[in-house]
């Protein structure tokens, strides 16, 4: 007898706008509180205190244009946010400050969330969609120097880049980029040479979101159709389709794999969050709480496994926090 799915542990209300992006920062020690950052359509970034479940601060840095990506850079004191005002802002939040220390003008009017990768202490790589239609630019932060620009070959017709993921196998190796495009294909890019290593057509519709597990060299992508595509990277750096999983309703906005690589969560257009086991893509739960499209899901980075949380932000202005599969 299967149990009915659990209810959210708590629900954060107060954004009064569509929630587009979420990021946890719960790794720090006492007396620091666990924090959740959320970016909304009204241009605010809310800093949620997960003890009191209230907003501690609201950051206004994008001129009331929608914020569609927030990422922490090594702790809760440094934050990166990306908005529809074509800017990427770097924030300094230490000791109660709320200042934008730097910003990058991307000149890109799309929705592609940027991807961050820490390559060395104090040095980051950031991949973002560039000004030209099909291009992706990789910058080094905080120096803002361009590392490379990845242009697909002429006639490839990939369309806009929709989602990006920078990763490296371990600390010393070459960083590579996985990019999902409008035509439904996922491309693996080599950054040092600026060339595409492999391209795989995973979907018939644009790739809305992807995530990658570098240990198993396996990734998953979701699109506006009913199919989730799981693909793998073999030794020759080639992408191959591993399996597909058909969903009940079409449309996925976000996919994220939990840091312990045991489960993954998808945010659906059908208002539901689905949990799968990552090893075999076994469907584990369907969390049906929201009353509108779920735009983003994020797993927390708690040091203590039993405290781990899953957050989902939706068009219905609410953020639901779930505690699920925390025993393993």
């Amino acid at each position: 007898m299967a149990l009915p799915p659990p209810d959210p542990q708590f629900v954060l209300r107060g954004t009064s706008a569509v929630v587009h992006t979420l990021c946890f920062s719960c790794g720090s020690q006492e007396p620091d509180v666990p924090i959740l950052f959320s970016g909304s359509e009204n241009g605010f970034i809310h800093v949620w205190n997960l003890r009191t479940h209230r907003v501690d601060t609201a950051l206004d840095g994008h001129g009331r244009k929608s914020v569609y990506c927030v990422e922490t850079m090594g702790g809760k004191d440094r934050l990166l946010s990306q908005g529809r005002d074509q800017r990427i802002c770097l924030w300094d939040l230490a000791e109660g400050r709320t200042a934008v220390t730097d910003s990058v003008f991307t000149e890109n009017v799309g929705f592609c969330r940027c991807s961050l990768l820490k390559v060395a202490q104090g040095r980051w790589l950031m991949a973002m969609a560039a000004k030209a239609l099909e291009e992706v630019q990789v910058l080094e932060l905080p120096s803002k120097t361009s590392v490379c620009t990845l242009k697909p070959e002429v006639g490839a017709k990939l369309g806009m880049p929709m989602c990006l993921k920078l990763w490296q196998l371990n600390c010393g190796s070459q960083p590579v980029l996985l990019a999902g495009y409008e035509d439904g294909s996922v491309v693996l890019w080599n950054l040092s040479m600026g060339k595409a290593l492999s391209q795989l057509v995973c979907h018939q519709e644009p790739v809305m979101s992807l995530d990658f597990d570098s240990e198993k060299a396996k990734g998953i992508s979701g699109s506006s159709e009913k199919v989730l595509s799981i693909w793998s990277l073999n030794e020759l750096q080639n992408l191959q389709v591993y399996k597909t999983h058909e969903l009940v309703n079409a449309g996925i906005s976000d996919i994220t794999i939990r840091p312990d690589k045991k489960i993954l969560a998808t945010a659906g257009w059908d208002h539901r969050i689905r949990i799968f086991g990552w090893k075999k893509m076994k469907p584990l739960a369907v969390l049906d709480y929201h009353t509108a499209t779920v735009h983003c899901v994020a797993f927390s980075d708690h040091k203590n496994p039993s405290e781990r949380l899953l957050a989902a932000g939706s068009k219905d202005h609410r953020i639901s926090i779930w505690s699920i599969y925390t025993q393993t």
Partner: protein
Amino acid sequence: VCFIPGGLDCSISFVSHVLGKVCIHGRQKEILSVLVPRLTDLTKSDCIWQRICWRLVECVPDRWMEAVVLGFVQRAPGADVLSRLLGNLVVKNKKAQFVVTQKVLLLQYCHTTAVLQNLLGYLYLDSLRRALLIKVLQELLETWGSSSAVKHSPPEQQQYISKAILICLSHLKEPEIESCRQDLLTSMMEGVKCHLDSNLPQIRRLGMIVAESISSKINTDGPVLKFQYEEDDEARELKSLLVQTPPFCVVPSLPDDERNEKAGAALPLVLESNKKSHTAAPVMPDEELDAELDSDDDLIPYDMSEDKELKSKAPVYIRDCIEVLTGSEDVDKWEATVKALESLVRKNPAATREVSVELAKILLHLEEKTCIEGFMELRQRAQVAVLTTDPIPVAKYLTSQFYSLNYSLRQRVDILDVLVLAAQELSYPKSHGKTKNSGAQKPCIQLLPGSDSSKDWRRIVDERIKSKTRRFASGQSQVELASGPNEFNSVAGNFFFPLIQHFDRPLTTFDLLGEDHFVLGRLVHTLAILMYLAVNTVAVTAMGKALLEFVWALRFHTDSYVRQGLLSCISSVLLGVPTERLLEDMTEELLETQSWIGDVVEKDPDGDCRRLALQNLLLMENLKKKLKTVPS
């Protein structure tokens, strides 16, 4: 009978006489069962024997010729054998020709298909006789195409003639068809019209099959006529007649047990292959099972049964439904509304009553906007729901629309069906729960007792009469069903009388007594059912009287479907109206009807009509018996 072969010029006329006399006395079977096989063998290769055989039959006197020829035609195992035995008898002898070309084909219809095959094949096999075949075909087509024959001859005869036509067509080759192509075409056009006009589906289908076959024969290149009809055994059998198998393969020269052996050998092979496929299949799942065992079992899935497809919501209020159905461009919403309408109507009777007539109007005119499965049924159920929720105004509206201008036949028939289904629902006690939808197409035929096999009617009639007698000592009876007031009581009149009112007033687009006899047939059946359902209501006597008068006015209608309906009406009256009322208020009508029914039993060409009439007579007999047993 043993003949002495060799040169002797013997006279066989004596033998012919004997043969004829025996046949005319009805002993065809005995003598021909010996004679025909013997002659078949003898005449197989021997010309002399063939000539002897021909002389034999030619010398049979005319007055016995029919019996002999018929016997031969029935006994011969194939057309070629018949040809050997009879020779050109039909050309030489007038009586034989009459029997073969006219009597067997047009005046009788009791013979089997094999006989027809023999006869027509025989006619084809010789060039002298072929002309006769063409003449036969033309006469058959004339009969097939005549509208009075279609209306008045029994369906069995029509099937027989159709079979004969198909067999003739199967024999004729190009040159012969060339010569009579024009005639074939004209007869086909006329015939198709009469057949499609009929109300009985069997006749329509016969017409379609024959017309298709004729068309395929005359238009060998180019577009061919193609109808849509239900393929069942009868249709397939008829179509198989179009193809002639050569006589060699037909006759099984192997003795029967050899054939059985072969069949037996085929079976074990099939079984073996089945077994093999079964053993192959289980191997696969085992492998898969092994692989699955070492997955992440420590993660137990939650219950995901609620995870279903997201559908666009249907409106929750009746007035919203009306808006969506009349105006909305959103097809998803329209679809969802159509699907949800019936349950909404039933859940909100008060709200429905406010807008019932409007809703009925919308539903009557509702056309299929997108391709929904079961649209007709959904619409009909919604209409029934509206009608049962608010019977009187909606019935008034529907019955008035039935006789209005500019409705299609489908809509008028729809109205009748909806009235019947709603009446059925209203008259059943509520504890029965959902009324069974006994097939939306023909609620009429199934409800009436005795419309199925003729053996059952007696039992059903008896049951019906038994159920009307009161039992005082019930003993260990079954649980009493909860009873409720009969809701049909108050509205039966509203359903019934408006329908019966204007049937003889023709409108420009709708003439019940003229061309639209299909609708008249349905109307009559509907009235029969409404009458039957009105049992135990207050208005039943008045309804019975009106119905008997209606039947009286239409009793000589030419369409057999209408007549069947009229007889069902009489059954309903006899069963529905309480006996005392029948005998007090309707004696004259009953007597007149009884004499008419007696006529129908004897003279009506349609088998179903005769059966229903017989049943009615029995009901009347039972009434009389009841009278006698009850002390007055």
